[in-house]
C-alpha cells in the first residue's frame, strides 16, 4: 500500500509539473499557429529556411516557456541549501546583517543564451555578411539608375511610420520598428526593432518574414493594378558587361559613403559590403564559401528559433500584434506601389525604355521580388526577360532599406 501511495505521489507530482497544468489557452493558440506556419513552410515551401525554425521555436517556447527563461540568483541560508541537497562549500557567500547567504545561480534556458545574438544585434549583420557573399551587384553597377527604384520602395517605410504614429496606439519607436517591415528585409527589421522597441521583436519578425514569404501573392495584383499592358510589355535592352575592377571597387565605395553619412547603418551595410568584397575579390574563396554556407546556415538556425521563441501566447495574442500585422501589410503594399510608380516615372522619362514592373523589386526580398517582376513581365510577353534588370533595384533595395534603418535609428529615440 505504501508503495502504491508513493507511486501515486510521483505520478501526481509529474502531472503537476507537466505543461498540461501550467499552459494557458494563449499557449495552445500559439502552438496551433506554429503548426500552420510549419505547414506553409513544408507543404507550400514559403521561405522554409526561415519559416520552419521560426515556427518550431514558437511551438517549443509555448510548450516549455522555461527554454527562454532568464538566469536567476537566489540567496539561500545554509539550512535551505541542505534541504535542497546542495553543498554550501561550493557556492559563493554574501553576509547580510550577520547572516551568511549562499548565492545559488540558476542558469537560463537554452534559447535565452542563443537569443543574446538577436538582442545584442549580432545575428542580423552576420546574415548580411552571408547575403553580401551571395549577391551580384553587377546589374546595379551596369545600371546605377536602379538605385532610384530601391529608394522609391523605401517611401513605404516612412509613410507607414506616420500612419502608425497617427493611429495613436504606438509610440514613435514602435512605429519605426513596424514601418521597417515595409523594407521586406528580415534582418534589417530585427536589427531596428532590437534597438528601438525590443518588446515588439516577436510579432515584427514574424510579420516581416511572413510577408517576405508571401511576396508572390501580395505583389502581382498591385503591379497589374498600377501598370498598363503596354508598360508591362516593354522589353529592356541588354545590360552592359561589368568589369572585375568595377565589381571590387563597388563595395568599398558604398561602405565609405554610407558609413560616413549614416554611421547607424554601418553595421548592416558594412557587413553586406564585406561579404561582397570577399566574393568579388576572388582571393578568399574559403572565407567566401564559409560565410555564404556554414556561417549563414548556423546563424539562420539560431535567429529563426529564437525569434520564433519570442512569440509567446501572452505577448503575441494582443490588439497591438493585430495592429502590427495590419500595418506591416500596409507598409509592404505601399512599398511595392511606390516602387512601381517610380518605375512608371522612369518609363516616362526614358520614353518607354524602362519596364515599370522592375520597380516592385525595389523592396528587398532578394531574389523573390525580382523573380516576381520576371514572372509578371513574362505573362504579358513570354519572350521578355526582366530578371537581371529587376535584380538592380532588388539589391539597391537592400542598401536602401539599410539606409532607411540608419535614418530611423539616428532620429527616433529608443524605448
Amino acid at each position, binding site marked *: 500500500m505504501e508503495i502504491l501511495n508513493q507511486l501515486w505521489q510521483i505520478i501526481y507530482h509529474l502531472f503537476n509539473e507537466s505543461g498540461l497544468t501550467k499552459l494557458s489557452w494563449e499557449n495552445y493558440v500559439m502552438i496551433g499557429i506554429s503548426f500552420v506556419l510549419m505547414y506553409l513552410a513544408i507543404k507550400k515551401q514559403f521561405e522554409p529556411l526561415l519559416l520552419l525554425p521560426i515556427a518550431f521555436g514558437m511551438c517549443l517556447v509555448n510548450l516549455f516557456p522555461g527554454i527562454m527563461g532568464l538566469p536567476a540568483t537566489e540567496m539561500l541560508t545554509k539550512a535551505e541549501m541542505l534541504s535542497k541537497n546542495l553543498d554550501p562549500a561550493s557556492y559563493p557567500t554574501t553576509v547580510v546583517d550577520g547572516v551568511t547567504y549562499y548565492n545559488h545561480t540558476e542558469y537560463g534556458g537554452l534559447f535565452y543564451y542563443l537569443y543574446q545574438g538577436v538582442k545584442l544585434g549580432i545575428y542580423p549583420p552576420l546574415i548580411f555578411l552571408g547575403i553580401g557573399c551571395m549577391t551580384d551587384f553587377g546589374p546595379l553597377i551596369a545600371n546605377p*539608375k536602379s*538605385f*532610384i527604384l530601391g529608394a522609391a520602395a523605401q517611401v513605404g*517605410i516612412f509613410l507607414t*511610420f506616420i500612419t502608425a*504614429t497617427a493611429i495613436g496606439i504606438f509610440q514613435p519607436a514602435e512605429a519605426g520598428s513596424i514601418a521597417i517591415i515595409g523594407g521586406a528585409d528580415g534582418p534589417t527589421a530585427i536589427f531596428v526593432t532590437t534597438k528601438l522597441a525590443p518588446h515588439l521583436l516577436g510579432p515584427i519578425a514574424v510579420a516581416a518574414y511572413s510577408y517576405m514569404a508571401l511576396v*508572390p501573392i501580395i505583389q502581382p495584383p498591385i503591379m497589374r493594378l498600377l501598370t498598363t499592358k503596354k508598360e508591362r510589355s516593354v522589353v529592356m535592352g541588354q545590360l552592359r558587361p*561589368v568589369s572585375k575592377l568595377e565589381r571590387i571597387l563597388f563595395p568599398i*565605395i558604398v561602405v565609405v559613403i554610407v558609413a560616413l553619412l549614416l554611421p547607424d547603418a554601418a553595421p548592416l551595410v558594412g557587413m553586406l559590403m564585406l561579404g561582397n568584397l570577399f566574393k568579388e575579390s576572388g582571393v578568399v574563396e574559403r572565407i567566401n564559401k564559409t560565410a555564404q554556407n556554414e556561417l549563414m546556415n548556423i546563424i539562420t538556425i539560431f535567429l529563426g528559433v529564437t525569434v520564433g521563441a519570442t512569440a509567446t501566447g501572452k505577448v503575441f495574442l494582443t490588439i497591438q500584434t493585430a495592429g502590427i500585422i495590419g500595418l506591416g501589410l500596409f507598409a509592404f503594399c505601399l512599398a511595392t506601389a511606390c516602387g512601381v510608380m517610380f518605375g512608371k516615372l522612369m518609363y516616362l522619362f526614358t520614353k518607354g525604355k524602362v519596364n515599370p514592373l522592375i520597380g516592385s523589386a525595389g523592396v528587398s526580398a532578394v531574389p523573390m521580388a525580382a523573380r516576381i517582376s520576371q514572372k509578371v513581365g513574362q505573362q504579358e510577353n513570354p519572350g521578355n526577360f526582366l530578371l537581371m534588370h529587376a535584380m538592380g533595384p532588388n539589391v539597391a533595395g537592400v542598401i536602401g532599406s539599410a539606409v532607411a534603418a540608419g535614418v530611423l535609428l539616428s532620429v527616433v529615440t529608443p524605448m
Partner: protein
Amino acid sequence: MNNQMTEALILLLAGFLVVFCVLILLIIVVTIYSRIIFSVQNSAKKKKEVLKEEVSSDDPTPASTQTAYIPRTDDDEIPGEIIAVIAAAVDSIYGEKPHKLRAVKKSRSSRSAWARAGLAENTRPF
C-alpha cells in the same frame, strides 16, 4: 499627440530626403567611377590593338589573303550558309568594333550540370 505627429512629419521628410540623397550620391559616384574605369580599360585595349596592327603591318602576307579569311570549324559538316549566319549574328553584336570570326565550334556541355540547374532555378516560373 500633436507633438508626436509633428515629429513624425519631420522624420518623414528627413527620411525621404536622406534616403534619396544618399542613393542619388551613390548613382553619381558609381556612374563616374564606371566611366573612368571604362575609359582607362578602353584606352589600354586601344594601345594593344595599335601594337598588334603595327606587328601585323610587318607581316609579309598579302592583304588579299587576310581579308579572305575562312573560319576554322571542328568538322567539315557545318555548311557554309550556317557559318555565314553565325558570322552575321556575331557581326550584329560586335559590328562596331573591328573583329574577325576565327573558328566555329560545336558547343559541348558549355555549362556544368550545377550551372544549368542554377539557371533553371533562377528562371523557372512559379
